[in-house]
Structure formats: structure tokens, C-alpha cells
């Protein structure tokens, strides 16, 4: 060791062990190696401790319980499920509920955030101050408290279904179609009287496919119009074609399949028929939206303010009105600043949706991490699965948003 010489670098002198600590060429590597070893030891120690303790307690890690029948019911299910279904299916019901509320909340939070962020920069004193108040109040109170406040107010203020009963009921339905109760909002549900497929799901896929076709066609038309504009300087009027492309195909399809609406009606203890949007879903959705919306508003404001005033002034000099300046000049550039932190906010919404259990919303934390964990006692397995789920979904959101970020990024040549 002491007489080892380097074969590759003739200028390097004899290598001594002390050089690992004294020589700047090696020192950082040495410390990194030591840190890595310590980290590995710590992880090994923790893992070993877990395995040993589990063995001492006579427990083993097994995922077989997922195939057993769950035995409990879930109030909101996007796929078929009953108490005889497996724990795995209950977990999937929970996963879909998590995705549903996260998706809805991401959309509305973005809308709230953009509106509030833009209005906060308004020249109108009242509007901008109102938006400041919104942002400061909502982002400075924990989201769990918002969820509980909204849910409690909903259950306490809205009428119970039995208030709709009797000859002179205390509460009546809006337009005889919508019922707002403390258990949720009941709205008319669409169904087909002459469906093309036996399964309702396939019919809706068909509708979505037609809409996707319309989207494709309108995009093609817009591209053609841009082409014409670039050649001749005049953009052909296309809005009525676009409108027709959106309405006619899907309208025809719905007519063929005989679209009808099922109106909710009070039967027995509850309203039946139509679509029920549960109180827990509303509270969770709304709370996540306004809470995260306040953060997004600040991002949007930062993004807009990051665009130099010269851009606005130049646009004004070209004769663009303030609204068009915002939409065509400022916002497209501001997106580059807005999107990276927006990714974190979307991730936060998804993770914060695990507070659902506070209002009895059956998300994956409530089904897999709550009832299943409790009824089977498989805590470690359930928590591992939960971690894997949230990690996967967060990484997917991240990848998707980074992809979008690349597409709006400033192209440098």
C-alpha cells in the first residue's frame, strides 16, 4: 500500500493513506464515501430492527389479505363494489376516489388561482384588496381546518332530506331538479333510452371519442386558418364552423342514443335517482381548491410581475387593449415562471386529499389505510402500499407537468 504508485499520472507522487484526508484531490471523495457507508449502516440497522422485531412478535409480511373479502361497504364508488368484494377492490375504489377529488381540485384551484392572481394586480383598489384578503386568509389557515369548517357548515346549515317531505315542506328543490341537502347535492343524471352498447360505460366512451374527434378537427381548422393568415394577412372567419364541429356530431349521437335525464326524487329516507355529489366530496373538493388556489394566486402574481413592464408598454404601443395584452403577451411568458411551482401545488393537492377521512370521504387512505388496515391488522403492508401509491401518482403528475413545462419553455437557439 505504502509503495503504490499511480500508473496513469506520472506527476503524482507516492500515495500515502493520510492523503485521503489531507489531499484536496481525495478529501471530498473520502468524506462522501464515509457518509455513504454511515447512511447504508443506518438504513440496514433500521430495516434489520424492523425485521427482527416483527419476527419476535411473530408477525410476517404478507399481502394475501388483499384477496380476502373486505366485508365493509363504501358510500362513494366509481366502480362496482359491495361488501363481498376483495380488499384489493376496496383499495381501487379508494384510489379512484382519491384521483377524482384530486383531479377536480387541481382544475378548480387553478381557475381560482389564476383569477385571484390576475385580479390582485388590478388597478381597481377594491378588487385588488379583496383578492389580497382572500389569499392571506385562505393560505394562512391549515387546510384540515378548512375541510372541517366547510363540512360542518354544510351539515348544519343545509336542510336534511326529511325537510323536503310533507305538504308544506321546509325546503324545496331548485327548479324541481336540484336538491341541496346536508348529505350532498342531488342533480339530474343523464341516461340513454336507446343505447348502442349494453354497458353504460361504453356508451360514454363513444361520446368521449366523438368529442375527441371534434377537438382534432377544430385543431386542424385552426392550423389551416393560421396558415392562411400567414400567407395573406387575413384570418378567415371560422368560429361558426368550429361551433358546428363541436355541437353537431355529439348532438346527433346523443339524439340517436336517446339522451334523457333522471330527476332525483325523495323516496324513503333519501333522494333517489340522478347523480349524488356527496357532502364529503364537496367539502374536500372546495376546501382543497380555495386553499391551494390562494397559493397558486401568488404564483400567478409572481409570474406576471416577472415579465418586464416594457412588454406591456410595447404591446400598448402596438394598440393592444389591456385584456389582449394580458392574454397574448404577458400570460404566455408568465407561464414559464408559473408552471414549476404549480407542479408542487398539484402534488400538494393530491397528498392533502388524504385528509379525506376527517369528513368520511372514502379515499385510499380511508379504505386501504383505514378500514382495511384496521380490520386485517396488516399495518405495515397497508402503509407500504399507500406509500407506493402516493409516490407513483406524485411522480406521474411531476413527469406530466414537466413535459408541459418543456413545451412552454423559452426556446433558446
Amino acid at each position, binding site marked *: 500500500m505504502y509503495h503504490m504508485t499511480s500508473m496513469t499520472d506520472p506527476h503524482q507522487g507516492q500515495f500515502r493513506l493520510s492523503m485521503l*484526508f489531507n489531499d484536496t484531490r481525495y478529501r471530498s471523495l473520502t468524506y462522501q464515501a*464515509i457518509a455513504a457507508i454511515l447512511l447504508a*449502516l443506518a438504513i440496514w*440497522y433500521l430495516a*434489520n*430492527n424492523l425485521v*427482527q*422485531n416483527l419476527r*419476535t*412478535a*411473530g*408477525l410476517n409480511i404478507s399481502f394475501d389479505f388483499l384477496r380476502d373479502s373486505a*366485508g*365493509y*361497504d*363504501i*358510500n362513494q364508488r366509481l366502480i362496482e363494489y*359491495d*361488501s*363481498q368484494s376483495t380488499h384489493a377492490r376496496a383499495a381501487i375504489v379508494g384510489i379512484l376516489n382519491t384521483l377524482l377529488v384530486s383531479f377536480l381540485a387541481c382544475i378548480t384551484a387553478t381557475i381560482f388561482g389564476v383569477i385571484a392572481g390576475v385580479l390582485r394586480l388590478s388597478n381597481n383598489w377594491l378588487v385588488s384588496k379583496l383578492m389580497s384578503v382572500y389569499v392571506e386568509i385562505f393560505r394562512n389557515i391549515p387546510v384540515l381546518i378548512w375541510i372541517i369548517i366547510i363540512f*360542518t357548515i354544510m*351539515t*348544519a346549515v343545509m336542510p*336534511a*332530506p*326529511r325537510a323536503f317531505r310533507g305538504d308544506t315542506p321546509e325546503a324545496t328543490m331548485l327548479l324541481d331538479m336540484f336538491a341541496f341537502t*346536508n*348529505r350532498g347535492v342531488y342533480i339530474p343524471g343523464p341516461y340513454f333510452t336507446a343505447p348502442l352498447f349494453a354497458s353504460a360505460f361504453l356508451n360514454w366512451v363513444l361520446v368521449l371519442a366523438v368529442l375527441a374527434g371534434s377537438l382534432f378537427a377544430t385543431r386542424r381548422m385552426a392550423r389551416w386558418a393560421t396558415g392562411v393568415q400567414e400567407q395573406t394577412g387575413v384570418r378567415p372567419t371560422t368560429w361558426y364552423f368550429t361551433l358546428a364541429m363541436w355541437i353537431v356530431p355529439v348532438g346527433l349521437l346523443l339524439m340517436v342514443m336517446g339522451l334523457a335525464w333522471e330527476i332525483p326524487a325523495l*323516496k*324513503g*329516507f*333519501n333522494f*333517489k335517482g340522478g347523480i349524488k355529489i356527496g*357532502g364529503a366530496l364537496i367539502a374536500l373538493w372546495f376546501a382543497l381548491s380555495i386553499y391551494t388556489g390562494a397559493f397558486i394566486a401568488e404564483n400567478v402574481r409572481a409570474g406576471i410581475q416577472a415579465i418586464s413592464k416594457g412588454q406591456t408598454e410595447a404591446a400598448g404601443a402596438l394598440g393592444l387593449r389591456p385584456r389582449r395584452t394580458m392574454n397574448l403577451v404577458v400570460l404566455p411568458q408568465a407561464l414559464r415562471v408559473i408552471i414549476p411551482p404549480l407542479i408542487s401545488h398539484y402534488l400538494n393537492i393530491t397528498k392533502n386529499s388524504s385528509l379525506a*377521512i*376527517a369528513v*368520511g370521504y*372514502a379515499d385510499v387512505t*380511508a379504505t386501504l389505510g*383505514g*378500514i382495511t*388496515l*384496521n*380490520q*386485517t*391488522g396488516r*399495518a405495515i403492508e397497508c402503509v407500504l402500499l399507500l406509500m407506493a401509491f402516493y409516490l407513483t401518482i406524485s411522480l406521474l403528475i411531476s413527469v406530466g407537468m414537466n413535459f408541459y413545462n418543456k413545451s412552454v419553455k423559452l426556446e433558446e437557439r
Partner: protein
Amino acid sequence: MKKSAFLGALTVASIAASAAVAQDVSTLDQVKERGKLNCGVTTGLVGFAAPDANGQWKGFDVGVCRAVAAAVLGDANAVEFVPTTGKTRFTALASGEIDMLARNTTWTFSRDVDLKFEFVGINYYDGQGFMVSKDLGASSAKELDGATVCIQTGTTTELNLADFFRANDMSYEPVPIETNAEAQQQYLAGACDVYTTDASGLAATRATFEDPSAHILLPEIISKEPLGPLVRHGDNNWGDIVRWTLNALIAAEELGVTSANIGELGASAGANPEVNRLLGTEGTLGEMLGLDAEWAKRAIMAGGNYGELFAKNIGEETPIALARGLNAQWTEGGLLYAPPFR
């Protein structure tokens, strides 16, 4: 030099590891060393376990905790009450955060065998019932088709409910709730038509309502819910101590030993040999448990015998007004039957 320091650190780490792995210290020794019994109870169910206006935990389950603390530590107040929800209770017990759980927990096969717990006995024979508001007009649980039902999540009642409605070919909508207090709020706001849990819990909850007479318990009892204290698998001596403390409370009622006459009965050996063995004036039962001779005497003095605990916390004189029913002594047509003390 560096190397030896590193090896030294490694050695320390591995010693720490082996110390953390070995959990062979008995629960009894841990409790004695700590000077306090960690007892898991509910987050608050009046009559069974709830803090009173002064922050003192009171109730029927609390009584069991205090009796064990009195038997083991000689002080009925040397208890750290750890509030647990239906979801957290088993993790708390399995992890060693609590020494015993006295939280109206139903004794079931899978909890006993699969979750590796030891139910030491039954302190309340219960069954699952339904509470509805009177103006709902329902007189039987069979009329609840389509109802919205508030239910505490992570309990056996959750599974019984699913079974009951399936067996009767009815539909319902569950509203999962974490604690009794939340369930009460939801039920009173009319967010659910029905609240279901153990009948004793329903009676206790109803007693706290502003107008208890506006709510009724439906006659159907849809399950057997034998509630009792439990401990972890693996420390049989500790299980014995908790089991026989509970039995001592039950046997004391049967033998007529009350907190009023125990001083007199325990002073010297009397005519009834079983009372003598129970109170330690004869025989060495306490020694066999690893305790002193007066363990049971202290346990009974902590809050009275089983009947006194029942009457004081949930009996007919209290707002909860539960009849003894199945929980009467076997000599009076009930199911309470303590094995002999000999």
C-alpha cells in the same frame, strides 16, 4: 486511529441494535419501573371512559384500569390514560405504547388469534343496536332500507352492519366517522338517519343529548359484542394479572365483598375461605401472580366491586340507565361467572 474510532462507532451501533431488538423485559417490570400503568381507553364515551369537568378520567372501563394499577402499583391513580380511536387502538397495544387496552373492544377470533392479542375476559356483554330519531317513524331495523347510517370506522359494527343489511336484502349508505363525538354531531344534524354502535354506547351517547326522549333505540340487537380488556400476546404473566384483577372484581360482587365492608373483611381471616383467599388473608394467590398478598383487596378498594362500578358509572341510577341484563351475576340469571379463587 480513525479506523479504530470508526470500528468503535460500529460496535456501539450494533450493541444498540441488539438492545432495541430484545424486548424481553416483562410488562410487569416495565410498569413497576415506570411507576405508571399506560391504559388505552376511548377518546370519550360518557359512562365508559371520559374525562370529567376536572380532567379526571371516569367510567366503567376506566375502573378496570384503576383496579389493575391499584393491584400492581398500589395506587389507583397511577394510570396514564391514552385515548385511542377504533383505528389506533390495536397499533397502540401491539407497539407497546400501552400496557393494556380497556376500550369497549369486542372479543373476536381474528383479533385474538390473527392480531396476536389476548382477551383476558369480558367486562360487558353487549350487542349492536340502532338509534333513530322518533320522528323518523321507524319501529324496527328491518324498516331501514335506503337509510344513511353513521358508523364508527374500524369497528366490528362496521362489518355487522354490512352483514345485517345484506342478509335482509336492504340497501344503505354508510357514513364512516372517526370518533363518537363526531358521530353524535352528524347524527344530530340529520346528516345520517341512523347511528349504530354497541347498544351500551348508544345509551351513553343518548344520555348526553339535549332531549334524549326524542330518540329511540330500535329493538333489534344484530350481533354479539362481548367487550373486554386485552393485552399483547407473549407475556402470559401480565395477561394473568389483568385477567384475575377483572375476575377479582366480579368474584367480589358474588361473594358480597364491597368497598364498604372490605376493610373489615380483609383485616383478618374470616369464615368464608374463598373471601380469605381473595383478600390474601389465607393462601398465597398474590405471590403466584408475582404480586403481594393484598393485590385484590387494593383492586376492589380502587372503585368497588364489579356491581359498584356498574351502578356508579352506567347503572340505572345514572343518566345512561343501563339495566344489568346479561351483565348480572350468574346467580341472578346473568352471564358473569368468575372462575374460583383457589
